């Protein structure tokens, strides 16, 4: 097999995957090497499939070089959590591991996963074992495979939630790598009998060309940003019952500065399927991407490019052929918002859920806000509470009968209720500096301050309550889905951002570059006249993003290919 593959034309990672013996690589040897806090370069690719990213503290990188010390390597561990629901016990374990083995904080990601940061090499194994103790894992949380499956988050908002959440789990299981590597390396278990030849029935020995993302939305809520997913499902309801899903394909956020053939793209709605067809549809789409995705250039390897290269009609044909039946026509649906709806809500089952805002998705204690402590107290004292991570890096304390008790604890720690501007409530920031190796500029550590300054402007024009989606990332790869924001900010170099306007508040439109390489002062100067204009000349109910297009601050980006940085 190997001599049929022309490695010279393929991206390096293809060979690394192939040579890894189903994701083993030399991870065991790397973990045992005492001279470095890093793992071998090839293993940094393989570790991603195990949910582990090697990073280093970029704040001290220069200083350490001068100290003749290697970079301060540590690892990010991403915990898979399909549909975002954790039990109180699981929450407590993450809380504990954050303190004992990581940097004392938990990051809630934009894909409803947990992230621990700052785990040093010798703590990797104990951390993953600790995660395993509460029946969670990190496999396929990163890497060229299906990633954490997202679903609409708030159970009290829709009676369909339970079914959709179950589907997220089923999809996740169906697409989990079958290799025994994870158990061997991290849990000291040997799952595969030596006589049986190991295979990956879906993925094969080189896995997918690139990551693959799935999300399921329940209209009118689009908190999973379904159009940003490689594969999205939009739940369709008739007379209170789930009758199936509209299918969207070819969404994706990532792009690279200076390479116009990379761009964010919204998924196309290609049809409708019944609930019992979802797994089949998903598997076939994954297989088409596996077969036809670009393995030579990783920057062009996502499904969105496979579709744009071959055409959506080709894709439909391939899919229908693989399925053996044509997809039904898509059903009508309507989204009203892609943000979270904060506060208490009671479900049809009488249970209560509280959607909390978590700034930057970071669970930590600060003097002003002992958030981590407060949530630990809730997990300890409210036995029936679930902790649900939302696609907007927020948290829902869910499905509890003990509303009062939760409220009391949160009030004591001043976690809830808190007055927040509409802008802040709709903010997302990726991790960026100091740990993310891709970041050109700050995001999570800086956005809160910038928002405070924009709030001053909003206050001047009486728009503090206006819900405006603002998202900042430290690079154009798009973890914080900045291309869908009404105010998008993407880092170019330390202290400098590109400003994008014209996204919608339902996640159905890409924004457009407005100004390049702005400093903070520039950002505020550029935004103020637009905000002023908005306060005076907006139409009734008109959103900031719609306004920016109608007033021609930017022209609408109609398709991904037209997007420019």
């Amino acid at each position, binding site marked *: 097999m190997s001599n049929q593959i022309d490695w010279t034309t393929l991206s390096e990672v293809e060979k690394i995957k192939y040579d890894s013996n189903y994701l083993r690589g030399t991870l065991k040897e790397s973990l045992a090497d*005492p*001279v*470095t*806090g890093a793992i071998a370069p090839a293993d940094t690719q393989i570790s991603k499939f195990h949910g582990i990213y090697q990073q280093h503290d970029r704040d*001290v990188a*220069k*200083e*350490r*070089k*001068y*100290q*003749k*010390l*290697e970079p*301060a390597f540590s690892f990010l561990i991403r915990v898979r959590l399909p549909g975002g629901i954790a039990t109180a016990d699981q929450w407590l374990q993450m809380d504990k591991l954050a303190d004992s083995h990581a940097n004392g904080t938990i990051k809630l990601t934009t894909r409803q996963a947990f992230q621990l940061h700052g785990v*040093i090499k*010798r703590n990797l194994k104990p951390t993953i074992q600790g995660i395993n103790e509460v029946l969670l894992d990190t496999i396929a949380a990163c890497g060229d495979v299906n990633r954490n499956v997202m679903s609409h988050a708030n159970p009290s908002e829709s009676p369909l939630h339970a079914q959709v959440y179950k589907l997220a789990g089923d999809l996740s299981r169906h697409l989990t790598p079958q290799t025994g590597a994870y158990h061997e390396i991290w849990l000291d278990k040997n799952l595969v009998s030596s006589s049986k030849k190991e295979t990956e029935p879906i993925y094969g020995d080189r896995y997918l060309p690139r990551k693959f993302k799935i999300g399921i939305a329940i209209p009118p809520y689009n908190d999973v940003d379904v159009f940003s997913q490689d594969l999205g499902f939009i739940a369709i309801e008739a007379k209170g019952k789930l009758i199936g899903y509209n299918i969207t394909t070819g969404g994706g956020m990532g792009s690279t500065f*200076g390479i116009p053939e990379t761009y964010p793209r919204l998924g196309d709605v290609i049809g409708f399927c019944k609930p019992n067809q979802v797994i089949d549809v998903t598997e076939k789409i994954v297989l088409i991407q596996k077969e036809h995705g670009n393995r030579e250039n990783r920057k062009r390897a996502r499904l969105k490019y496979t579709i744009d290269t071959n055409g959506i009609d080709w894709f439909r044909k391939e899919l229908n052929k693989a399925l053996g039946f044509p997809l039904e026509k898509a059903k009508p649906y309507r989204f009203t918002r892609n943000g979270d709806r904060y506060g208490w809500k009671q479900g049809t089952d009488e249970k209560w859920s509280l959607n909390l805002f978590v700034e930057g998705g970071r669970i930590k204690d600060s003097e002003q806000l002992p958030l981590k402590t407060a949530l630990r107290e809730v997990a300890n004292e409210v036995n029936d509470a679930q902790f649900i991570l939302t696609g907007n890096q927020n948290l829902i304390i869910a499905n509890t009968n003990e509303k009062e008790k939760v409220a009391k604890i949160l009030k004591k720690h001043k976690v809830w209720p808190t007055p927040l501007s509409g802008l802040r409530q709709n903010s997302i920031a990726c991790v960026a500096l100091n740990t993310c190796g891709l970041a*050109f500029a700050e995001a999570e550590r800086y956005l809160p301050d910038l928002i405070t300054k924009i709030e001053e402007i909003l206050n001047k024009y009486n728009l503090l309550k206006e819900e405006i989606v603002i998202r900042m990332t430290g690079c154009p790869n798009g973890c914080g889905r900045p291309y869908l924001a009404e105010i998008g900010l993407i880092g*170019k*170099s*330390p*202290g*400098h951002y590109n400003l994008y306007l014209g996204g919608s508040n339902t996640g159905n439109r890409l924004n457009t570059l407005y100004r*390049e*390489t702005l400093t903070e002062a520039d950002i505020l100067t550029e935004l103020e006249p637009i905000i002023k204009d908005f306060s005076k000349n907006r139409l009734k109910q008109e959103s900031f993003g719609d306004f920016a297009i109608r007033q021609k601050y930017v022209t609408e980006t109609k398709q991904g290919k037209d997007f420019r940085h």
Partner: protein
Amino acid sequence: MTQTKMSNQLSPLNEAQLKSLEKLTTNLTKEQAIWLNGYIQGFSASTFASADSEISPAAVEKTAKTPLTILYGTHTGRSEKIANKIHAEATAKNFESTLVAMDQYKPRNLKNEKNLLIIVSTHGEGEPPVMAEDFHQFITGKRAPKLTRLKFSVLALGDKSYKHFCQTGIDIQEALLKSGAEEITDLVKCDVDYQPDADQWKREVFNNLHSEPAEELSTSSPENPTGIATRTYSRKNPYEATILDKARITGHESNKEVYHLEISIENSGIKYEPGDSLGVIAQNPDKLVDELLSSLKDDGSESLDTHAGKISFREALLHHYEITILTRDLIEKYAEKTNHKEVKKLIKDDQKLETYLYGHDVLDLLHEFPSKITAVELLEILRPLPPRLYSISSSQEAVGEEVHITVSKVIYENKGRQRLGACSGHLAEHKEVDDKILIYIEKNPNFRLPPNGSPIIMVGAGTGIAPYRAFIQQREAIGQKGKTWLFFGERRFSSDFLYQTEWQKYLKEGYLGKIDLAFSRDQKEKIYVQHKLQKQQKKIFKWLENDGVFYLCGDMKTMAKDVEATLLSIIEKQGGMTPEKAKGYLKKLKKERRFQADVY
């Protein structure tokens, strides 16, 4: 290009070869022909260099090629691509072209360059790419040498949408001009679409370089151009040296402050070998001197006779007498001089005295056992301030006219007062780059690399790693890759792994064969080097049996004792010897200089 008809009368080739050649050269483009020309030259040079008797001398023209060094610093690979192309062209044009990545280049060599091309990109806020950081720092820093012989040109790559467009290239250009070098042609800035500008620059470079006649083959410049006779420096006659570089080499989260110092001995004629120590003239902490004076109710201005001549009392305390450390001798003399009952009692109790000597200084003595001692009397009992010795952490073969040391700042608190080491405190707190310090070489013939490249086991804790850096530097400089094994101990991996990146490099290149690390505070139980030795005892004994040399460097009181005891037990166990026999074995090792210690 005009085609030349082959003539077999003028050519040493046979018929068939001529035919092939003709076939090959027909329809060559100019570029191809130039390349081929270079190829044949290079081929003959490398293939027949050692067998030149086979070709008649007349056949090879003895022209001195124009040397050209092309350095590139890249992040995306663009600079490298351009550099490769220019290198190929330069070689074809008969330059003696050398292509080097910036992180592989020793900036020290700049002095020897004649023609230098630099192709470098810029990132973020005008920063150099990672691989160019060191070069950039060197050339823009204080250590940049005078480069009046150098001709250069810079091609700067960047992205116009950023501020500080092409800044790194500009920095390097300015620094080289400042150091006296002359430009071959103006710096050219390239935007993302770099090709046209890069080509233009290349043309300018070759136009200007070709108009220069190749320089005479220069005879290598003498080592000591000034012809000053080499002086010898000593403890009594130290050399006033300049600090070239000073860097804390423990991470900021470490509770130890260890400094790496690079000191210039340029034109001093000073020579040293790996294993030698550097004597540094110490200076006591100002604060301690002030407190001592105030405790004596003395303003320190009075001129007194001292072992260093007639100087003020303050000056004497600051530079010439030991006050940060107590010795048995001093306390005995103090007892005698003051007739202090308590002190007399103290010197009779060995154990108590031993404890008291540790962590106390002259100020403690005066505070705790007050007396009416005068300045003159005090100086009579104090010992002269001895220089401090540091194991040299560099090899002169590698660093030339520099000497490196590794200094751990001695600092601790006792009885509510912060104590500072006489020399380490001064170096750490008051000496910076460009400052002067007084030094001399203290030869250490009992700590030497084996002359024959025998296996070496190097055991060190903390700054005890210093001489091993010199050892391995030496072996790298002379290209010797014998069996080498380093045991290093400190507190924490992340912040205290002294010279970590250098050891990683030596491991990769094979100059260091094995390494075992003991970080005492990275786990619940304390792990020290001797535990690592114990774990490897089989192999260690085997190395010793195979002519291996065992080195030990570090703190005498704790680590050295434990390591020697561990070594004895290893010899006993692995050699199947009685304790007596093992002792004899170790004695023999010492006699054969196969056990060498540098402990302090």
